[in-house]
């Protein structure tokens, strides 16, 4: 069976049933008054994993982190870190450090004092502490800024100080709350790779919260997609992208076309969806929907072929009119309006500089795709 | 450890709470109880006195001697009624004058160039830090018969005989407006300062005249500031003592002054307490209103 995406992984403790989870949420519920922020959630994260919690704001991902750091106690359920229950352990006694969204740098202390804060708290002797601080400053390339106050730094530098401070105590687990949210796009992309390198170098477990799907895709070993206090899907970036388990996940990560229809089986692990847009044949991996049930076929724009003539031998083909064209440089997105009124998005890679007779507005075109290129979703 | 920090966090609330209960709330209870007592010449000058040696029945007997006699006395004597009414009238008129002077000042400050605005703000706050008594006193030398204002006006030739201003209600109005002006200016200024000038531009763009835009946008958005300012002037002005005492005349009736006289000159603690209770009742509505506004502002600040 071909694998999803094109990354071969050597690090995948979550596939090993004997591996012991490093962090374990067991049926955790957190309520604030009548509002339920996290509902009956279970999750295992393994040592040295780069794990992302992804979701829109208010989905409960930050609450999850704050429970891990000790700023909130679960209303129900248990939390374990390295096999030890965390219930009742105050934040300052947890072997976990957090990098805050606002960075939370102490404004009245210098960069060096900020980094040394946790070490001092541990009673580390001064020579050792100074050495560690110097090491941290080197790690984040801020050696010459040791004596500055936070307000004398740029946004990117502040972010790195916050990072240095949170790893200075060599925690086994680092929690990062939207660590790159305040940076501009270019700096964010650079920092993503720096974070990954750092995680490798220090051998830490990272648990990161973000609402930026690209960020999560770039950095993570695994991603959990959250919605309204529950985890909708957990998986590697490729699993989440290529095999979403619901329309919510498919729609949240990247662009997707969703076509609706009633199910009829078509044999050989295939089903046919009859809907307003026509008949669509899709492949089913596990758990085929029942006949007559409503299901959805989700397909990414880059997996749709577009042409002027009806494609020969294609299992799925749809005819429509070009509605919008967006030229993005590396690719071109074409929106095609079907007879049913549904707009389907197709993306073509611009591999040649000069194209003879490109597709234009209001042309009649044919879209085609393989049953294996998309997924059949039941919710 | 957690127990200790739990105790600590309780103490954070408990210390100021107990302090205020003892030095703020309890004194009011005592005022109320004395307002219900009878005047007696002695020390302290009221009766009944409670003491533990009386036993329950003794205390009960004494409790039954508490009555509303003092309040009846206040209602029956036109001096007190007039004091209250006159206080309210003086406070109201002064508040309006303060608004009339304070609003243009705050508006002018809010529109001043960025460079000088902090200085202007400090200049408004500065008098607030200097003694109230001194600022009222400064007006005596200006307003009296042979004072600086009369000298100036005589010199200008505007008047032939000195005006009688000191020891009249006019002097009290001037004193209140002067003393409380910063209280009016600051909330209005902060409301106007927060306002985005592009709102006025948008109103003008949509066809408002300059004055129309002022009324429909600027003035509307300043309303919370104006209300806060008016309450901050009106409430303390009603109970004012120093200004009517130093600037007003024998004809100036204000309840704060009446209370002072009852207490210090007539040594009538029971009537003074009753006056305080009624003054408080008169002020309860604006005070509660102000408190809610404060609490809301604090909430919004979060």
């Amino acid at each position, binding site marked *: 069976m071909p694998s999803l995406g094109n990354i071969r992984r050597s690090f995948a403790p979550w596939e090993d049933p004997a591996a012991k989870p490093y962090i374990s949420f067991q049926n955790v519920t957190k309520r604030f008054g009548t509002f339920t922020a996290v509902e009956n959630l279970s999750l295992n994260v393994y040592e040295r994993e780069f794990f992302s919690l992804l979701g829109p704001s208010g989905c409960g991902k930050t609450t999850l982190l704050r429970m891990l750091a000790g700023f909130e106690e679960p209303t129900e359920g248990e939390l374990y870190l390295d096999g030890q229950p965390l219930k009742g352990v105050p934040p300052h006694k947890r072997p976990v450090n957090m990098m805050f969204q606002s960075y939370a740098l102490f404004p009245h202390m210098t960069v060096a004092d900020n980094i040394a804060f946790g070490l001092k708290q541990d009673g580390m002797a001064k020579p050792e502490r100074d050495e560690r601080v110097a090491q941290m400053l080197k790690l984040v390339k801020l050696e010459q800024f040791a004596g500055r106050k936070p307000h004398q730094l740029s946004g990117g530098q502040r972010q790195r100080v916050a990072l240095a401070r949170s790893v200075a*105590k060599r925690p086994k687990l680092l929690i990062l709350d939207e660590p790159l949210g305040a940076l501009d796009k270019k700096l964010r992309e650079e920092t993503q790779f720096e974070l990954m390198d750092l995680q490798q170098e220090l051998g830490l477990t990272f648990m990161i919260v973000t609402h930026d799907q690209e960020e999560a895709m770039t950095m993570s070993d695994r991603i959990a997609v959250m919605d309204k206090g529950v985890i909708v899907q957990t998986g590697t970036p490729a699993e989440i992208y290529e095999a979403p388990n619901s329309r919510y996940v498919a729609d949240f990560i990247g662009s997707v076309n969703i076509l609706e229809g009633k199910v009829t089986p078509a044999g050989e692990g295939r089903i046919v969806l009859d809907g307003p847009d026509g008949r669509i044949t899709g492949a089913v991996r596990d758990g085929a929907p029942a006949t007559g049930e409503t299901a959805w076929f989700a397909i990414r724009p880059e997996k749709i072929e577009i042409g002027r003539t009806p494609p020969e031998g294609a299992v799925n083909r749809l005819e429509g009119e070009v509605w919008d064209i967006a030229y993005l440089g590396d690719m071109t997105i074409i929106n095609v309006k079907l007879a049913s009124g549904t707009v389907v998005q197709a993306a073509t890679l611009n591999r040649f500089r000069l194209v003879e007779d490109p597709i234009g507005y209001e042309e009649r075109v044919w879209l085609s795709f393989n049953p294996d290129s998309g997924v059949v979703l039941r919710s | 450890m957690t127990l200790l920090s739990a105790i600590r966090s309780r103490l954070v609330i408990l210390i100021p709470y107990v302090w205020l209960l003892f030095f703020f709330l309890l004194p009011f209870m005592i005022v109320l109880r004395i307002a219900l007592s009878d005047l007696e010449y002695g020390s302290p000058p009221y009766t009944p006195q409670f003491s533990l040696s009386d036993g329950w029945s003794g205390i009960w007997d004494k409790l039954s001697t508490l009555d509303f006699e003092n309040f009846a006395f206040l209602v029956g004597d036109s001096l007190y009624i007039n004091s209250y009414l006159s206080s309210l009238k003086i406070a109201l008129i002064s508040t309006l004058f303060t608004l009339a002077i304070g609003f243009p000042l705050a508006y002018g400050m809010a529109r001043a160039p960025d460079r000088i605005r902090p200085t202007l703000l400090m200049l408004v706050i500065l008098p607030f*830090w200097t003694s109230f*008594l*001194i600022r009222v006193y400064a007006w005596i*030398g200006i307003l*009296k018969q042979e004072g600086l204002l009369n000298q100036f006006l005589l010199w200008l030739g505007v008047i032939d005989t000195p005006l009688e201003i000191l020891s009249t209600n006019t002097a009290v109005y001037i004193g209140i407006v002067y003393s409380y002006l910063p209280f009016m200016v600051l909330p209005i200024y902060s409301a106007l300062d927060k306002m985005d000038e592009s709102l006025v531009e948008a109103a003008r763009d949509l066809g408002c005249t300059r004055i129309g835009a002022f009324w429909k946008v600027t003035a509307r958005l300043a309303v919370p500031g104006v209300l806060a300012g008016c309450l901050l002037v009106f409430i303390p002005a009603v109970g004012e003592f120093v200004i009517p005492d130093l600037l007003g005349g024998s004809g100036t009736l204000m309840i704060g002054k009446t209370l002072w006289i009852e207490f210090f000159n007539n040594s009538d603690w029971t009537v003074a307490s009753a006056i*305080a209770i009624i003054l408080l009742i008169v*002020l309860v509505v604006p005070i509660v209103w102000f408190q809610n506004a404060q609490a809301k502002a604090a909430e919004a600040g979060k």
Partner: protein
Amino acid sequence: MNARWSWFNITSVVFGFAFLYLPIVLLVIYSFNESRLVTVWAGFSTKWYGELFRNQGLLDAAWVTVRVAFISATVATVLGTLAAVSLVRFTRFNGRTLFTGMVYAPLVMPEVITGLSLLLLFVSINFARGFWTVTLAHITFSLCFVAVVVQSRLVTFDRSLEEAAQDLGCPPFQAFMKVTLPVILPAVISGWMLAFTLSLDDLVIASFTSGPGATTLPMKIYSQVRLGVTPEINAVCTILIGVVSVGVIIASILTKTREVQRQRDEQAAFAQ
């Protein structure tokens, strides 16, 4: 808001400030008047200031006032800060409404009522009136002002700073002392200064709660003012105004330079 500064605006500002400052300026000028008749200018002289320093009663009163102000401001700052922390951090506890009410009410309470009620308290618990009763009374009303000043700073305080300290191994109380307090310190200091000047200025509450041997400066000034305007009083007032103004101006210049420095640093940081 930033628009054209019209003539109307300029006029109202100039007029407003003239009204605010002219009486004080006149008072200061006439404190240097040679003549005993305060309203007739008879040449420059500093003799009234000399007189002042020979007036033992006035000096005693000044000393009492400064001590009362110092003690009451300090205690009020501690209590007021605790009250502010309670108001901001503990949004739910028994009697919070009453507590909030007790913190805000003294801000607008007529002084005669506060003074009378405290006096009656001291009488009924047989507490001898004097220095300490005035001090206790001043603590009580100025702690509310401190609470409001500190509270307004605390609501904008980023709580994640305190959480970061805890996360790095600080117990909650230490985190407050090491991180929160240094950050809100400017507000606490201005709370103290406010409490100090409130106590320095107060006449009404002190008159009610004071006793023999504890005459404060405002009480002394008041008793003399009732007899009429004298250049000596003008001189006392000038000194008081001078001390307070210099204090406030220095404080605001310090804040301003720090602010300017900070903005410059920030611009420099982002220009890198």
